[in-house]
């Protein structure tokens, strides 16, 4: 019997109880933090405690969505799952998830742990918990003041993967050269997923494209086409490093107001063709669903079932959540880096009616204190479709700077308003003349905005039920 372990877990469980009692916070990190203070080696007691295995998802964008989609699939397939929903993805959040599901002596009654793990926290978490599968979504620049350069982030994940003993398998995005390289550098058994090259998806937005150079020989990568940022059909003209052939590939991807439809083609051990529908928009969500689908297959879930369970996916807070206010469709999206923001703008533009937009930018620690990245976002695309917008309301601690960015992108100042107060900003957006409302917020602005929005508007759980009454 390990007394320190029990005290640590007891303290964490007490903190969870108190946080529920007082209704303060979501209690997804603090209990773990407390437990790790008392007993830093706590996590090692959970190694090997899940009956069937541990699947970790890391990368820059899409961790929460992919991991939640996978956890949903596994739970609907009848397994008991430990998971850290809501994006608490540092070592403290992982500890909280385990403590919550386990007993005072760290016993678990679970089949799988489905965990999202922050790239920077990945080495620390994998020091204690050995994953059976590691899924990597993509690598983009994100919060430079916290993480350092992109090279550093990739090196952290790569280093941790190399250190892992045993037969950990990888599930990698074939379309991102920064992710695909992990196969070559670790030599681990790998399952690739990707989106089939298709002219209809190709994007010309070259800004904030990362990784122009081959990671192995440094020459400029050649692309047959781009999907977004550095994702696409790449090839190094010198050493032959190229987009691997995906085991699971999506083709005929269509993203419209109802969600994403695609055909999935599996090859090799996963041969077959299945149709996929998820009730969320955006090509990046097609990648997230594809990743979760691939991971579920690698864990033995039948493909038809995995595809069916995905149709019932409900987005987590800020991952393109839908609300309804006075027959207006309101979407709330978390933005945290240039690539994610560009994708959010693409989703806004997919709505062809007139809309009001609210953008809330904070610069607290959790958002990244440096907001320079806003200048790498391609707001210039908005200017070509200005007739689709009734107005832009900028909010949060850096409301003024957001307005400035839009002005320099070419948005006329008569369409710009700044309103630091979330409630007033939200009111202005909801009561605008647009037929729809798009809300984009950085991390620490998201929760308060979601809370106010939840009081005013009706949450739409699944867009299949969201057919507007007027149509």
């Amino acid at each position, binding site marked *: 019997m390990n007394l320190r372990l029990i005290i640590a877990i007891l303290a964490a469980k007490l903190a969870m109880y108190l946080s529920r009692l007082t209704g303060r916070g979501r209690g997804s990190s603090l209990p773990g933090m407390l437990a790790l203070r008392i007993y830093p080696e706590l996590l090692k007691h959970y190694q090997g405690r899940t009956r069937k295995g541990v699947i970790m998802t890391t990368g820059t964008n899409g961790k929460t969505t992919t991991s939640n989609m996978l956890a949903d699939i596994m739970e609907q397939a009848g397994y008991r799952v430990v998971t850290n929903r809501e994006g608490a993805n540092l070592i403290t959040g992982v500890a909280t998830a385990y403590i919550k599901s386990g007993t005072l002596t760290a016993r678990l009654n679970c089949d799988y742990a489905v965990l999202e793990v922050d790239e920077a926290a990945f080495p620390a978490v994998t020091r204690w918990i050995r994953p059976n599968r590691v899924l990597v979504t993509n690598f983009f*620049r994100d919060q*430079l*003041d916290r993480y350092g*350069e*992109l*090279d550093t982030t990739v090196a952290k994940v790569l280093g941790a993967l190399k250190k892992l003993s045993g037969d950990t398998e990888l599930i990698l995005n074939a379309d991102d050269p920064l992710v695909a390289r992990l196969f070559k550098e670790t030599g681990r058994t790998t399952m690739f997923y990707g989106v089939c090259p298709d002219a209809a998806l190709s994007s010309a937005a070259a*800004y*904030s494209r990362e990784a*122009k150079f081959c990671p192995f020989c440094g020459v400029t990568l050649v692309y047959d086409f781009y999907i977004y940022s550095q994702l696409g059909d790449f090839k190094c003209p010198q050493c032959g490093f190229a987009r691997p052939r995906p085991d699971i590939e999506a083709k005929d991807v269509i993203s419209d107001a109802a969600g994403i439809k695609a055909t999935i083609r599996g090859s090799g051990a996963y041969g077959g063709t299945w149709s996929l529908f998820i009730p969320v928009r955006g090509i990046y969500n097609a990648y997230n669903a594809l990743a979760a689908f691939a991971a579920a297959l690698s864990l033995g879930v039948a493909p038809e079932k995995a595809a069916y369970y995905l149709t019932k996916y409900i987005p987590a807070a800020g991952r393109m959540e839908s609300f309804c206010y006075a027959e207006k469709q309101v979407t709330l999206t978390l933005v945290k880096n240039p690539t994610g923001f560009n994708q959010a703008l693409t989703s806004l533009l997919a709505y062809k009616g007139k809309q009001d937009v609210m953008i809330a930018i904070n610069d607290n620690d959790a958002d990244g*204190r*440096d*907001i*320079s*990245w*806003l*200048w*790498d976002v391609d707001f210039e695309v908005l200017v070509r479709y200005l007739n689709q917008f009734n107005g832009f309301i900028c909010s949060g601690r*850096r*409301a*003024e*700077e957001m*307005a*400035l*960015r839009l*002005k*320099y992108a*070419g948005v006329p*100042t008569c369409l*710009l308003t*700044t309103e630091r107060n979330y409630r007033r900003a939200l009111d202005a957006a909801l009561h605008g003349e647009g037929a729809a409302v798009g809300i984009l917020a950085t991390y620490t602005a998201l929760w308060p905005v979601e809370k106010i929005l939840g009081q005013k508007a009706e949450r739409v759980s699944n867009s299949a039920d969201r057919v507007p009454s007027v149509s």
Partner: protein
Amino acid sequence: MLTVCHLYPDLLNLYGDRGNVLAFVQRCNWRGLPVRVEEVNLGDPVEFADYDFLFIGGGSDREQTLMAADLKARVTGLRAAVDNGLVVLAICGGYQLLGCYYRTPEGREIPGLGLLGFYTEAGDKRFIGNVVLETELAGKKTKLVGFENHGGQTFLNGLEPLGSVLYGSGNNGRDGLEGARYKNVFCSYLHGPLLPKNPALTDHLIALALARRGYASQLAVLDDSVENMANQAMLKRLLS
């Protein structure tokens, strides 16, 4: 027609750097001044004398090494253009590169281009955070706001600074100075959106570029209410 040279945008686009080029171009556009941007990447032919405004941003270490090697071969043309009044804005890594050398934590000296007489040494801590500095532009005192994120500490060796630090660390966290100035060259650690948020500096650079070509440097007044709001919001937050 003013011509802007954005040097190595492929390599040095670390964090919001393109905001500076955007601000220069937009403020010319809004005044009806014809302006054109040329992007010069590794190995591209470049005639520095043909440009009116040269922008050099920051990059990660590996990219800066590539850039330094490429630029070394072109330093004579660059030096001549600078002496002839070429307007330059150099940020972070671009700033360090214009100096004499960068001394690594191991004590190794990586030579810079030597256009300006300052030098940089690796510090034991990284300076990260918001900055306010006071500078004088065309005889007028102006407060500039921005964000710094650098490990290197720069010592000016008697060179004129861009300004004095009112909030933040600046060149080295010790002497209260930020950036460097030499002829029409402006260097700063304030990366990302330095020019958009500081329209007085942007206009100063535009005026210098016009004057160098023999045009009247009196610029039409623009409505800067959004710019001033962003600038004032940070001044209020940081200085009060």
